[in-house]
């Protein structure tokens, strides 16, 4: 994957993983995507490995990092904005040293995973939505904010296979955050605190029950009724949302209600869900955890075998509570510094990450898709997208650093 093709390189900066970018003499043509442009243009701040703030060789930094992990009772491996090979290497490390491994700030993804675990899912990939959907319902605040080319690729795409005209798009969500640049056939204005109730009302109407009654005078029930009719009449509806925009504390309930709506609709027609996510290869990291350990997140290997608990092994809680005694922070696609922690910290970060404090060990790695090749999974989880080295740097990959660390950690048999 080291050769850079003239066209068709892929972008690692959001879960859409658009692969129609090209590299030219003036840099990467990101087809108008500001997020990708910013990502590819990121300034390199440091290529230097450090130990306690002082310049060091990679080997010296690795030795210090290995010593921290060997000496820890319960290390935490988090951040986890890494490519698939990096994730494979880091779960192996967690298994070897009995660590907790969990993605940082992944509440929305965990909500979605929890609903799938408990109830299931009814979904489709980008290619199905783009080629078939005749009605598109956007739920919640505009998911296009975090996935800039979403509508261009899936809704207003020019050459669909089985759609004769652009789909009818309805937005159910805050009127202040409509899908930007997308013509709507209807807007069902529902502010965030009422989103769950609005979804309940839609679900009730689809099941032939009365919605709301006297308890929901503020819900636009007539418009929700129209929406129910539109979805029932669709040949192939698609419901798109970004759970990160759902009201805090109600993400799982909203997602479960969307699933209920999908189940109702599919009794007579077709309708699929497309939950967005996958920024920083979060879907890829979840898949690696699933195949290597059996669960997608919030894993602890301390007992010598993986254990999953969505509350106990949430990285933010563990770091705040002081239950972990070392922090291995790995972040490449997102230039995020490790949280300042009282425990010994190893930072494995890309060159464009500014560190607030000097960690015990600082290892600068490349970013897949920029410094070296690699693979990430798209938001729709099925398709792994190959990344080329758009700007090769010779920095080590996360996978290669993990491979250097692994033999230095005593096998706790």
């Amino acid at each position, binding site marked *: 994957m080291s050769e850079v093709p003239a066209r068709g390189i892929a972008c690692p900066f959001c879960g859409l993983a658009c692969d129609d970018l090209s590299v030219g003499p003036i840099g990467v043509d990101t087809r108008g995507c500001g997020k990708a442009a910013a990502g590819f243009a990121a300034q390199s701040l440091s290529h230097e490995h450090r130990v306690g703030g002082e310049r060091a060789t990679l080997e010296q930094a690795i030795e210090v990092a290995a010593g921290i992990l060997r000496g820890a009772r319960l290390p935490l491996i988090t951040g986890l904005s890494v490519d698939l*090979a990096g994730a*494979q290497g880091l779960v192996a490390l967690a298994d070897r040293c009995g660590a907790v491994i969990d993605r940082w700030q992944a509440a929305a993804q965990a909500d979605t995973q929890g609903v799938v675990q408990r109830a299931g899912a009814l979904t489709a990939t980008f290619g199905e939505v783009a080629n078939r959907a005749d009605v598109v319902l956007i739920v919640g605040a505009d998911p296009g904010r975090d996935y800039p080319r979403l509508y261009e690729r899936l809704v207003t795409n020019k050459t669909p296979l089985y759609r004769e005209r652009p789909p009818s798009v309805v937005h159910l969500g805050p009127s202040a955050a409509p899908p930007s640049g997308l013509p709507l056939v209807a807007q069902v204005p529902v502010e965030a605190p009422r989103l769950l109730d609005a979804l309940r009302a839609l679900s009730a109407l689809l099941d032939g029950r009365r919605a709301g009654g006297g308890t929901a005078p503020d819900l636009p029930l007539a418009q929700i009724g129209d929406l129910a009719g539109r979805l029932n009449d669709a040949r192939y509806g698609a419901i798109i949302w970004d759970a990160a925009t759902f009201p805090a504390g109600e993400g799982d309930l909203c997602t479960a209600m969307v699933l209920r709506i999908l189940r109702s609709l599919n009794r007579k027609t077709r309708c699929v869900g497309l939950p967005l996510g996958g920024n920083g290869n979060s879907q890829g990291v979840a898949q690696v955890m699933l195949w290597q350990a059996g669960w997608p997140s919030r894993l602890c290997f301390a007992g010598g075998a993986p254990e999953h608990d969505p509350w106990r092994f949430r990285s933010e809680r563990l770091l705040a509570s002081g239950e972990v005694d070392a922090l291995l922070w790995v972040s490449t696609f997102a230039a995020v510094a490790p949280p300042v922690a009282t425990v010994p910290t190893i930072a494995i970060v890309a060159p464009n990450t500014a560190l607030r404090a000097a960690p015990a060990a600082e290892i600068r790695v490349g970013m897949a898709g920029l410094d070296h090749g690699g693979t990430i999974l798209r938001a729709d989880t099925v398709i792994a997208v190959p990344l080329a080295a758009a700007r090769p740097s010779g920095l080590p990959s996360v996978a290669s650093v993990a491979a250097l660390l692994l033999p230095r950690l005593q096998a706790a048999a």
Partner: protein
Amino acid sequence: MITRLSGGRIFDPANGVNGDIRDLYVEDGRIIAAPASGTADQTYELRGRAVMAGGIDIHSHVAGGKVNLARLLMADDHRDVRALHGSLTRSGSGVATPSSFVTGYRYAGMGYTAAFEPAMVPSNARSTHLEMADLPIVDKGTYVMLGNDEFLLDLLAHGADQERINDYVAWMMRATAALGVKTVNPGGISAFKFNERKLDIDGAIPHHRVAPRRVIQALTRALSELGVPHPLHVHCNNLGIPGNIDTTLGTIAAAEGFPIHLTHVQFHSYGTEGDRHFSSAAARLAEAVNGNPHVTIDVGQIMFGQTVTASGDTMAQYRNRTFASPDKWIVMDIECDGGCGLVPFRYRDKNFVNALQWTIGLELFLLIKDPWRVFLTTDHPNGAPFTAYPTLIRLLMDRDFRNACLKEIHPAAQTVTTLGSIAREYTLDEIAIMTRAAPARILGLADRGHLGIGAAADIAVYAEDADRAKMFTAPEHLFKDGVEVARRGEVVAASLGRTHVVQPEYDRAIEKPLKTFFDDHMSLRFENFPLSEPELADTGIGLAVHPCKPRSRA
């Protein structure tokens, strides 16, 4: 270094050896002739042991996006059964959908050295192969799913020449690093996306207006003309529906004499007789298989207990959601080339339908005469986890055990089945055929599945035991490419097997319409779709490329 395996009873049906006491010699991962000196650097005394090639599972859902979704649904299974890591091994969890490392260790612990993932959606190929880099010890390979891919359906709808279809199939097999091609409910997965809920073999696939029969014709012929060793691997239309035996027999006819492999036929051998309008049609299918030498099958036996069904057949899985236990399920439409559906199942011996399914599978095993054409599978995890194989082998080899189990199932199922009257007991030679020699032959793995000179030294050594389940649970030794990797079920050496593929030739003219199709309609560009060999090599996977030899119809 030369290793001698001394004094074992050799079961090597591919070379006509049936229980003879012989020495085997191994050097550099291969079986060699006895050295002139007669000496070896290392000797295993195997008196009283049965020696066979490593087991080969022709159909087992071990990797890919749908298996990961199944893992997600089976959270309880993963919580209840966890495997500790060792100095050589990785930890893991699960029984019905074990994590990848544990899958490899359990296969090796049971004497298997290869397992083939039978339902790789083309668009999921890259992810599947990356995952298989974490499936240790055993060799592996995939069958790419075609027949619901809109590009092929469009070719058929426009009456494309067979040559063009062949070019497309060959391109796709190379692009996805596949060993075989499977078709799942041909046309039915696509039809479900157009809101059709049932599709018969002569029905019309929506939009394209071609029949599933035409898909089967085109693909069986393509694989024969390309010389792909494994015939089309077919999951028939109408899975699980009472009366589907007619569809299954129709599928055999649709192949028009070209080799065809029907998979998990237990789910496709149902009649409509009796008070409950659900009956065994095993005898009818067995008769058809016995009379058609170009047909091979695997059974997809069910065993009682908790599992999860994982299938590309969204149409069937959506229909079966009402049986979900526990009550949760996933259906996903995939990328204009396939789909997947996950439904947890708990097969109960006191449930009439489940009990009859159990008897139907066993009837098929026992009524199909030629062990070279019937393969031992549970369609892992759909009928049962692959770890049920030792018990299944005992059911086939031990009539008293089988009849004792029969007495435990739903009484109405006992009265309608002919199982109790079937006297046949499989021999060790026949077990070696159906789990080793025949799968290797039907997959085109010339150096696997046998113990002749030059064969890969994949060797399982079993302590003889009248309780065949006990015997086949954990061989005393398992050698993979000449290295002892497992002893009495425990992994003693970590290794990573190969990925078996074929690379049929094709006319590159097909790439032009493919490029247009991908770039105009698909969400991944044409040049990013195919897996490259360097990309596979980067994952640590070694490819074993098998030759293609074109053949004609029977």
